[in-house]
């Protein structure tokens, strides 16, 4: 089936069916691997690296070490409490293939556009009856522009409603050419102050905000979203700057995403590029505070139903 370079392949790490909170209706969400940012609160730390990785579930491992014989890099560690030397591991997946207990799992698989589409079309009846569709999330899907240029026209051809969840941290040209293929663009307002943005995500946000401003003029389906992490986004200054920016762009609506420490449990399983976040405050209270503040600043915030 594989034709080498001829057919672009996307790197994804999960496909979740029956998602109710990634856009209207019943949706299937595709999680792309690789992100230009590394947000301190990232819920999907396995999404950051643009390469396949191995995750180790210590609780499933019986220590049989079948993996040691399969690994071509000698990256299997034997002491209790450790299994993978992530500095040697190149994520080839040979160990996961032989692991009898799914304790070693490949994170990231390459798919062609038609393979992905086949997977997504399984729930097409439910998209139709619910007004749902497909959401591309990640990671940052727009970093895989070559693949998307192949996939998106086919998905549109199939009549799928398409939504994108983006950080905006990608090449401006890719955003400009690919954005019109989506019905909905969920664009994250992670932090307004450039220095703070660099501190929390590892990158400056000037290009990101410029991209948002351009899209606000050209794309009717653009929706701002904000992760609400207690002690980070919920400061008065950040909220005020967010509100001013959005109003300047002619946008009133903003979706608020409650924080879950979901990502932190995943960190030890992967090459640990992140430290757990020391939370300052209660996520629910913070969310309510942000909602009220943004409302009084003239925006229409929509709180995602907490799961």
């Amino acid at each position, binding site marked *: 089936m594989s034709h080498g370079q001829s057919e672009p392949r996307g790197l994804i790490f999960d496909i979740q069916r*029956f998602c109710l909170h990634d856009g209207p209706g019943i949706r299937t*969400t595709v999680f792309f691997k690789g992100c230009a940012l590394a947000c301190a609160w990232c*819920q999907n730390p396995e999404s950051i690296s643009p390469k396949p990785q191995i995750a180790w579930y210590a609780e499933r491992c019986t220590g049989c070490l079948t993996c040691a014989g399969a690994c071509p890099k000698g990256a299997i560690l034997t002491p209790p409490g450790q299994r993978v030397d992530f500095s040697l591991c190149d994520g080839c997946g040979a160990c996961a293939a032989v692991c*009898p207990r799914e304790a070693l799992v490949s994170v990231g698989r390459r798919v062609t556009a038609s393979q992905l589409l086949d997977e997504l079309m*399984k729930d097409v009846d439910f998209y139709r*009856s619910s007004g749902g569709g497909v959401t591309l*999330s990640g990671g940052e899907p727009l970093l895989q522009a070559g693949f998307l240029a192949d996939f998106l026209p086919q998905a549109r051809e199939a009549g799928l409603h398409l939504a994108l969840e983006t950080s905006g941290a990608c090449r401006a040209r890719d955003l400009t050419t690919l954005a019109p293929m989506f019905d909905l663009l969920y664009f994250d307002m992670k932090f307004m102050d450039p220095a703070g943005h660099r501190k929390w995500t590892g990158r400056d946000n000037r290009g990101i905000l410029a991209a948002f401003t351009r899209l606000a003029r050209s794309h009717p389906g653009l929706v701002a979203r904000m992760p609400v992490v207690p002690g980070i986004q919920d400061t008065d200054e950040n909220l005020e700057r967010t509100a001013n920016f959005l109003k300047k762009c002619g946008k009133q609506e903003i979706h608020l995403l409650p924080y879950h420490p979901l990502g932190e449990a995943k960190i030890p399983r992967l090459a640990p590029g992140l430290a757990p976040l020391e939370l300052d405050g209660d996520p629910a209270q913070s969310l309510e505070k942000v909602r009220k503040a943004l409302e009084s600043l003239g925006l229409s915030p929509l709180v995602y139903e907490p799961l």
Partner: protein
Amino acid sequence: MNERVQRLKRAVQEAVPGLCPERALIWTRYHKDKQNRKKPRPIQMAEALSLVLAEKTIRIWPDELIVGNYTRRRVGGGIFPELHGLVQMSDLFSFPSRKENPLALSRADMARLAAIAPFWATRFLGARVHKSPRKNLAFLARQLSGTEFVINETGGISHIAPDYEKLLTLGALGIGEDAAQRRKAVRPGSDEAVFYEAVETAMAGLAAFGHRYADLARKMAVAEPDPARARELAAIAETCEQVPARPARNFAEALQSVFFAQIAVNIESLDNSVCPGRVDQYLFPYLKRDLDAGTLGPDQARELVFAWSVKFAEIVPVFPALITRIHGGLFNGQVVCVGGTDGNGADAVNELSMMLLNAMDELRMRQPNYTARVHAGSPPEYLDKIHAILAAGANSPALYNDGAIVPVLVKNGYSPEHARDYTPVGCVEPVSQGRSFSSTDAALMNVPLCLELALNRGRRFGSRLRIGARTPDPGAMLSMKDVKRAFTDQLGFGLEKLLDDLAAVERANARLHPTPLTSALLAGCLESGTDSTAGGAQYNFSGIQCVAPSSVGDSLCAIERAVFRDQRLSLPELAAQCAANFPDEDLRAYLLSLPKFGNDDPEADAWTDWVMEAFSDLLEGRKNTRGGKYTMGVYSVTVHEFWGRVTGADPSGRRQGEPLAAGLAPGNGMDRCGPTALLNSVNRLDVSRATNGLNFNVKFDAATLRGRTGPLALSALLSTYFSRGGMQAQVNVLDPKVLKEARDNPAAHPHLLVRVSGYSAYFNDLTPALKDELIRRTSLCAGRGGA
């Protein structure tokens, strides 16, 4: 729900369920009289029934508007000594003290009941199934072990939706008069004449039962200090003077007449699945007439409906531990069905349908078993109401799709008009209201056990005794064709044994337990002068349940992969692993990772479909002794849990002790891809083979269906599932947190209603194993956003 209804509900929910000995004792006294035993059976039945109705304690409880007590207790059940009474009484001395479903019973009553056991020891139905005593003993041993199959019909038949419309139109005396007229046209002393005479007697007994309440209400009215209640009692007296003896003249009389008949049919036939059925259809004319005439206000009408609904929860079955393993949760399947179409296919939802849905939602009691029919033309407000109720966690009504069921009934011999007049009975089984005698719950077949036998030359694992067909050694099976052949041979062999026993049980029911009252309320019986147990009804079927098809389907899929494709191990090695309950944990993990039904995987789904096809093919062309077809049902009540304990480990990776798949659901915990994938899998099956209905339980975590998006998503899931031919669904929306609280501290949630297998039960009434199973199965993937 107004205050009166709240009080009525509380009184019933707080009453301690108990065992009432009256039916058993009166029944025994009648039959101990040698003169009576010389009479023809139908006459014995009618006279014994009338005697019970004439002598049993009657009560009118405070606040009641609809009256009639099934037992002398507020909530209680009775013993049927001539049917399965001896089995019921196997817990006689432990009923009050047992842990699950305790039933109050005084020591004196215990002694009275124990004293009747010797009389029935040689007379109960199970003792007289086969003529040869040795054959009969073997039959009883099979029944008591209940491992290969269970024949429920040994405990009586019931499972009917009587023609209550006819009772309301003619009255019991009118029906009796009809029988008398017909008797004049047949030869005196003939079977027909005896049957008609029995109907006359039974109907007279039913009429007199109402009159006893009229007398009681009159007396109570005189003594009642509260003038308002005295007026109500006087009205009750007037109602009971009229019904069930004579035609109902208004809505209150119609409700009352139905409930009296409900009591009498339960006492006569068996207290299992006597179903009012399509109440919103046959009672609506009475409601509409009263509302239009202004003689009844909407609030009064609602109050009556609620008060009527509460009454059904007063009737509980008396199940010993032996039966609880099959039928957990004190359920007796009195189905009330709303919605659907009329005989021409036009939508039939009316004000009463909506009123009944409200009653169900607000009362949330174990009985009646509320179900709702849906079809392409169901009105949006009706569907929205149902989806909102379900998303909010009511766990009822169960949904039935006319689009799938009506064609199946027609294919099976119903006229289109009669097929469209179906109601589910029991758990999930569709019958035509007032026309079918379907014994839908005749028997349950342990299908995974047939695979165990196929993997061990007709023997149970670890046993040298062959109980199945003589199939080849697994080492000699060289392809899936051989494996499939061995399995169908075992299944055919087992079904043959089952049908042989069942035919004998059917004849025993006709011979020993005719049911003239029930028969007079089923079209065809009076016309033919034949009791329903002897095939007098217009439509006759017997339902044989294919239990756990997906457990076998997943196992066959695993054999094909592990043995013939991956060649990971040989078939004898795999069989040995199953026999030893998987000592090799790695192998088990591998087997569990193979494709499983319920995950939108065509390969796995095809195997479950094949199992259902093999089962229904083996029933094809077989007729019961009433001249009706044997039909396949796909539901398991709670026997999947019991059979999971006694059936050996299987190649799907299930260990002995873990439950089998429930109904049409995937194996326990095997569906991992969420509800859309699950529904795709179920829609892939040819459910038209399930002519006796199927039970498909889809469970959601409460969080998934919360808020704005939940009901919309549920509605989209169900409408897609049904538009693609889904037959039935029941939605359980449960919060695992709440369930765990209820398990650990039963007092915290005394009346938490859950859906088990086609019926509702209080969580506290379930066995610990069933509670755990429900908790395990409660969370399907919830949508999780990546952000």
